[in-house]
């Protein structure tokens, strides 16, 4: 199997240079005052930094956070009817279970692989989990600090707990269920969607707040993936017209900013469709995002396809696989596995880019921040920095956690190693 097992192959400890423990004094001398120039830099730079830090921290300590306390629900779920809040809660719980199940399934799979190849595999300890997901926990803690009742805390604990239970169950999954592992997250998304909008729920064109950003990110990637895969295969096709169509689409989309596509969807889509087919504004934004992401995913998948040695295809042909089976059983599994880190990168980039729907008038998390500052109670009090810092924390934690996970997967897969 190309790429080797997913398990971490830890280098022999004897190959590493012996680690030297420095005393704090030695450490300071080595890292801050090694040369006269270094000392000067440390002192001047440190003083400047301290001044800045004191100023910023002071600013945030003395700030009035009433605006966030009052608007917390608006930030998270926007205008979702308050008597129906059980729906997003239930959906989050379902997704948490699905993520836990998938993670648990992946763990036993990696363990099995490690056993087969004889390499060592170490299960993540709770300490590892803390090191990996502390920003997420920090964010939840900050958000809960702004709540006034005990319910949100209980709900958060419940959601985290269901994830842990899901993880435990995932490790008990029989090996035969592994083949269908990919369907768990999709099933989770489908159930969550039904919980939110089915049975008298809220149509997605009414969604807003962080909820909308998350929806646009996940739905954008899920819908764009098949299209991107088709475009990538089209670009590598030997049929000239198919290749020309794919290349034109990909290069055109990659050459324009997302905002122009959003404009197209919001202002011009009405001209391109007959009256009865005109969708709501969130759907329009989703169409623009899907078209945009498909081009970038196509390029990522193309990179993965190029990384599959041609010997693999020849071997598949030699054992008599049809072109379709060659693609599905030999090429794509290898190609897609190596695109995972880049895919996560694209996911992060889309998560940040969903804020652009603010410009075309949708009420996403960033717009809620601006709206809160326009409320009579908070108008003109210069509280933008409070709300934007809060919104920024959410985006930062999401992106930072995901980018670290991407790097972790990258190390595991050995992608990008020289």
């Amino acid at each position, binding site marked *: 199997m190309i790429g080797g097992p997913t398990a971490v192959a830890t280098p022999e400890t004897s190959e590493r240079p012996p680690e030297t423990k420095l005393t704090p004094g030695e450490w300071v001398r080595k890292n801050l005052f090694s040369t006269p120039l270094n000392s000067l*830099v440390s002192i001047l730079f440190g003083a400047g930094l301290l001044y800045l830090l004191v100023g910023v921290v002071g600013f945030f300590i003395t700030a009035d956070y009433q605006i966030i306390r009052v608007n917390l629900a608006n930030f998270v779920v926007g205008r979702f009817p308050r008597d129906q809040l059980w729906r997003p809660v239930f959906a989050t719980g379902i997704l948490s279970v699905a993520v836990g199940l998938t993670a648990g399934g992946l763990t036993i799979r990696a363990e099995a692989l490690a056993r087969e190849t004889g390499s060592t595999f170490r299960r993540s300890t709770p300490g590892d989990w803390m090191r990996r997901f502390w920003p997420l926990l920090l964010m939840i803690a900050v958000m809960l600090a702004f709540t006034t009742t005990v319910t949100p805390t209980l709900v958060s604990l419940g959601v985290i707990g269901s994830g842990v239970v899901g993880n435990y169950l995932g490790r008990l999954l029989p090996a035969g269920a592994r083949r269908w592992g990919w369907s768990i997250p999709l099933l989770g998304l489908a159930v969550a969607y039904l919980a939110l909008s089915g049975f008298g729920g809220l149509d997605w064109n009414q969604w807003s707040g962080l909820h909308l950003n998350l929806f646009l990110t996940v739905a954008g990637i899920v819908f764009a993936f098949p299209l991107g895969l088709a475009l990538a295969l089209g670009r590598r096709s030997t*049929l*000239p*017209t198919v290749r020309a169509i794919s290349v034109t689409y990909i290069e055109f989309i990659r050459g324009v900013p997302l905002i*122009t596509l959003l404009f*197209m969807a919001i202002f011009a889509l009405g001209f391109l469709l007959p009256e009865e087919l005109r969708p709501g504004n969130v759907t329009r934004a989703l169409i623009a995002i899907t078209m945009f992401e498909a081009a970038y995913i196509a390029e990522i998948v193309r990179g993965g396809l190029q990384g599959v040695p041609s010997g693999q295809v020849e071997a598949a042909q030699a054992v008599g696989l049809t072109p379709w089976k060659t693609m599905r059983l030999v090429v794509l599994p290898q190609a897609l596995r190596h695109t995972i880190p880049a895919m996560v990168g694209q996911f992060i980039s889309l998560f940040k880019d969903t804020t652009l729907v603010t410009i075309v008038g949708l009420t996403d998390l960033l717009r809620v921040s601006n709206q809160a500052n326009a409320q009579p109670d908070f108008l003109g009090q210069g509280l933008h920095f409070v709300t934007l810092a809060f919104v920024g924390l959410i985006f930062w934690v999401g992106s930072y956690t995901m980018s670290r996970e991407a790097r972790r997967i990258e190390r595991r897969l050995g992608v990008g190693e020289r």
Partner: protein
Amino acid sequence: MTATLHPMPVRPPFWRDLRVIRVVTQLAAVVVVGLVVAWLWNNLTTNLEARGLPMGFEFLDGPAGVNIADNEFRPSQPVRDALFVGIKNTLALVVAGIPLLTVIGIVVGVSRLSANWLVAKSAAVFVELLRNLPPLLIIFFVFNAVILELPGLSESWSPFGLLVINNRRISVLGFTASVGVGWFWVLVLVGLLIAFVVWRWRTRRFDDTGEPHHRVLWAGGVLLVAVVVAYMLTGRPVRISLPALEGRRIEGGYSGLGAYFGVLAALVLYTSSHIAEIVRGSIQAVSQGQVEAADALSLSPFQRLRFVVLPQAFRIAIPPIINQYLNYTKNTSLAIAIGYAEITRIVNQAIGNANPAPQMILILMLIYLVFSLTISAVSNVVNRRLRIVGRT
């Protein structure tokens, strides 16, 4: 006998004939795409007609009906001219931003590898903080939470008399030119040519004799002398102009809207964090053996960096850096969110003024496509140059 060894090639049935499949698949692809385009086109013409909007591009000569801040553009001027103003304002962001973000990115990227713990950690925090925030949020933060909170016009803040800062405009030190400035630039150009010749001479001499070339010192010195002489000869045509608040106006210096500086600062910070990551990665990608070889030749740390590490790192770094320039250029479209009149905002305003949206947005996309293709072309040329320099 031979007939059984080499049987007559039997053509497979047509549905399994590869040549037929190829033709049919391509035809099907073209027909499907063609049908979709035709359907959209049909809808477009019907809908435009139903709303009484023009099909062609004649509206470009009609009045734009938009006001543009900080520009003498009048609403009665044609849409075409408004678009040019927008392109000019977008370019103003690009031209000022790219050098700034390159310098900041390189400094931060190199700082991340500093031996000084404080410097390395600060650079890491800078990168990890900015890289993981949405650029639009940074723009809002810089504009809404910083620039709009600056003092008003009458209480303008003026540090050292070099800048005038208020919540509407920011003015920086500039230059004014008077008669004779043309001759000044001609002489400076001549000086530049002489400096170039001196540079070549020093290089050749170094190659022939091996004595230190000091070409930077020589060429720089020649250029400095040329500039000073030119300045004196043409009667000091370039003066420094300091901005100053006079009544309700700011006189002198270069002046720009707060929105312009807000977008510039936010996007430069955001993009430079990406550049810093590229620079760091490229330096780390230079193999350790190269560094050790440089040490074995007893090069100084500076020489090691200048002659061994950086030339190799740059070859790795330049294509992704140019890609970031492209991203920066596309991100300038976010300036619309705080009302800076670049091309996206002009188009948005023009659509609001009953100009047909499909055509306007098509024009907007084509303008960005031209920007992108230009940068890609530059990138391709640079890549080709780098390949020649590189190992084969």
